[in-house]
C-alpha cells in the first residue's frame, strides 16, 4: 500500500472539487436525541461544511448504498398472453466519505457473500464497483466493541483512508483510482515525523476502548449452549421488531415479492431487506414455522453472526459497531448477551 500526507486545507479543496463532479454521501448531523447526543446519518452532501467527519457513529449503516432496503430485481411486461422479463442494474458513480474501519470491514464481509463465491450478484457488484470510499480513523465510540472482533483497523476495501494528525491527514491509498485522484491535489511524501505521529494516534485509539466482548471459543460455546436458558431470558425481552437487522452493517437477508402494476400490464420483482427476528422468517408451506418462538429467532441471529459465518468464512459476521445494541427498544445488546453466554458456560 502507498501512503501520503495531505493538509486539511488541501483535503477540503479536494472534496469541493469532487462535489462538483459526483454525488458524495457523508455523515451529516440530522438531529439531537433526548440525551443530548447528536444523531448522524450517511446522506448526500452539497458542501464540505455539511460533512461531520468527527462523528462518533451513525444510527444506520451505509449498507443501504450497496444493498438497498428495497431494490428492483426484475420487471415483467405482459402482452398477448405472454410475458417478457427485463433486468436493470443500477450503479451510479458516487463517493462515500468518512466511513469508519468497522463499516469498511462490514463491506468486505458483504463482498464475500454478495460479490464472491456462488452466484455473485450483479446488482451488488454494480453498486460496489461504482462507489468510491474514503474512510477515516476515529477515537472509539461509546459501546463499540470492534476491537474485540478485530475490525477496528482496515487494510483494504477502500480507495483512501485518512488518519487525523491534527493539521493534516495521513492517507493510505488502496486503489489506483484513489491514487490518481490524489494526484490532482497537493500532497507530500510521508516523513519520519508523520510516521511517529501516526503511530501515536493509533496507540491512543487502541487504548480508548472501554467495551470488550469475549470472543474466545464463541462459535463452540454457541453450539454447546444451544438450549441455554440465556436465550429464554433475552428472548422474553425481544419484541421481534427486526430493528437490529435494519441498522446492522452486515445483515443482508431479504425477502422477494412481486407486484402487479395497477393496469396489470406489467409486474415487478422486488427484494426487501428482512430480519430473522420477524415472525414469518422461517415459515414454510402448510403454515409450519421452524422458528415460531421469539427466543429461537433471537438466538438464531447470534448463531448466524458468531458461528455460521465463521464456519463459512473463518471470521464472525459482526463488526462490533453496536448499532443494534443502541437501537434496540428492549435494551438487548450483544456485549451483554455474549457475556451471559460465557457465564452460562462457567456455571
Amino acid at each position, binding site marked *: 500500500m502507498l501512503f501520503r500526507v495531505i493538509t486539511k486545507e488541501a483535503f477540503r479543496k479536494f472534496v469541493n472539487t469532487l462535489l462538483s*463532479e459526483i454525488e458524495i454521501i457523508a455523515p451529516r448531523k440530522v438531529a439531537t436525541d433526548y440525551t443530548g447526543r447528536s444523531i448522524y446519518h450517511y446522506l448526500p452532501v452539497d458542501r464540505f461544511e455539511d460533512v461531520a467527519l468527527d462523528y462518533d457513529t451513525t444510527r444506520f449503516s451505509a449498507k443501504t448504498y450497496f444493498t438497498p432496503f428495497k431494490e428492483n430485481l426484475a420487471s415483467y411486461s405482459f402482452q398477448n398472453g*405472454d410475458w417478457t422479463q427485463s433486468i436493470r442494474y443500477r450503479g451510479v458513480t458516487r463517493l462515500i466519505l468518512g466511513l469508519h474501519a468497522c463499516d469498511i470491514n462490514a463491506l468486505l464481509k458483504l463482498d464475500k457473500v454478495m460479490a*464472491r463465491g456462488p452466484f455473485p450478484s450483479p446488482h451488488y457488484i454494480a453498486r460496489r464497483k*461504482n462507489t468510491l470510499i474514503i474512510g477515516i480513523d476515529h477515537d472509539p465510540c461509546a459501546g463499540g466493541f470492534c476491537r474485540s472482533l478485530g475490525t477496528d483497523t482496515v487494510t483494504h476495501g477502500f480507495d483512501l483512508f485518512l488518519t487525523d494528525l491534527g493539521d493534516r491527514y495521513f492517507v493510505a491509498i488502496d486503489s489506483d483510482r484513489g491514487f490518481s485522484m490524489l494526484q490532482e491535489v497537493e500532497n507530500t511524501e510521508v516523513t519520519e515525523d508523520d510516521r511517529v505521529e501516526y503511530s501515536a494516534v493509533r496507540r491512543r485509539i487502541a487504548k480508548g476502548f472501554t467495551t470488550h466482548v469475549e470472543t474466545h471459543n464463541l462459535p463452540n460455546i454457541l453450539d454447546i449452549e444451544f438450549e441455554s436458558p440465556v436465550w429464554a431470558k433475552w428472548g422474553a425481552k425481544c419484541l421481534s421488531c427486526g430493528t437490529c437487522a435494519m441498522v446492522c452493517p452486515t445483515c443482508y437477508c431479504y425477502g422477494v415479492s412481486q407486484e402487479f402494476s395497477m393496469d396489470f400490464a406489467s409486474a415487478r420483482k422486488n427484494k426487501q431487506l428482512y430480519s430473522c427476528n420477524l415472525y414469518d422468517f422461517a415459515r414454510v408451506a402448510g403454515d409450519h414455522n421452524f422458528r415460531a418462538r421469539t427466543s429461537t429467532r433471537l438466538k438464531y441471529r447470534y448463531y448466524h453472526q458468531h458461528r455460521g459465518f465463521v*464456519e463459512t468464512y473463518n471470521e464472525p459476521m459482526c463488526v462490533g459497531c453496536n448499532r443494534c445494541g443502541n437501537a434496540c427498544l428492549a435494551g438487548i445488546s450483544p456485549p451483554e448477551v455474549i457475556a451471559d453466554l460465557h457465564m452460562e458456560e462457567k456455571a
Partner: protein
Amino acid sequence: MKAHLHHFDITREESMLLPVEFHRKTRLQHVDKAFKAEITRIVPLTDMERLYQLRILDPGERERFTFFPGQFVMVDVPGFGEVPISISSSPSSKGLVELCIRKAGLVTGVLHKAGQGARVGLRGPFGTFFPMEQMKGKNVLLIAGGLGIAPLRAPLYSIIENRPDYNTVHLLYGARDQSQMLFGYQYEQWRRVGDVKLHLIVETPDPCWTGEVGRITALLEKIRIDPDETYAIVCGPPVMFKFVCNRLSELGLPMHRMFVSLERRMHCGMGKCCRCNIGSTYTCLDGPVFDYWTVMNLKEAI
C-alpha cells in the same frame, strides 16, 4: 478529475455477455434471469397435487439446461412470485422438466389455476444432488413418505434408465391413505420394467385396501438389508425421515450413506436471502440433499 471517475458498466463485463449457465455457479452472470418455459401437460394426481410438464422454449437454453437428481428449480410466476420446487423427472430428458406441485400457498395456488400453454419462468437448477455414481454396484433403498415421492422420482428414473449399474433396488412408499398415494398409474411399470421392488403402506386403510397398514418403518422389517452394500435415499416430512434414518442406523447402515432432502422456504435459491438457513447452513447451496450425519449436526433441521 472526471477522467478518474469513469463508470463501471457491469452489463459489458465479458462473462455477463455469455449465455446464462446456471451450473457455473461462480461466474458473474444475470442471476435473476428466468428461462421461459411452457406448461405442455398437466396431470392431476390428487385434489391437491398435480404433475406439470414444462418445456423450455428457447432451443439454446433447452440445450444448456441440465440437472442432477435431487436438484430443484425456482418457478417464477410473473406478478405472483417464485417458489422452489424439486425436479421430479428424468435427468436425461433435455429441456423437459416435470414438477409435482402441491397447492399450498399463493404461487402454487395460481399454478393450479393455470392451464396448458401457460408460460412460467424457471431459474436453476440449484442445490446438491444424490450421488448416483457412488451408488453404482450397490443396493439402493428409496424411501418416500407422502409428497416425498416427488423428489424421489428423479433418482428413481436415473436408476431405472441405468438399471444394470445398480444391484437390488427397493422403493418403500407410505402415505396417509390410498387416495394420497401419488403416481399409482406408474407402479406396474416401475415394478415390471424397472425391476424395482415396490412396497406400499398406508396409515389409515379404506375398505378396499389389501396391502400393508402402519408406519413406513414397518416396511423396513419386511426386507433384508445388507448394511455394507446399501445406500438409502429418504424423502418425506422431517418426523418421518428421523424415524426411518434412526431405524436404518440401528440396522447398521452408516449415516454417510443415507441421504435426505430437506424442505425450506427459499426466496433466492443462491445463498443470499438467508431464508432457508438452518443454523448456519444454506439449504439452497449446501442442500437440499444432505447425508444424515450432516443433518444430525444441523440445529433445528428436524
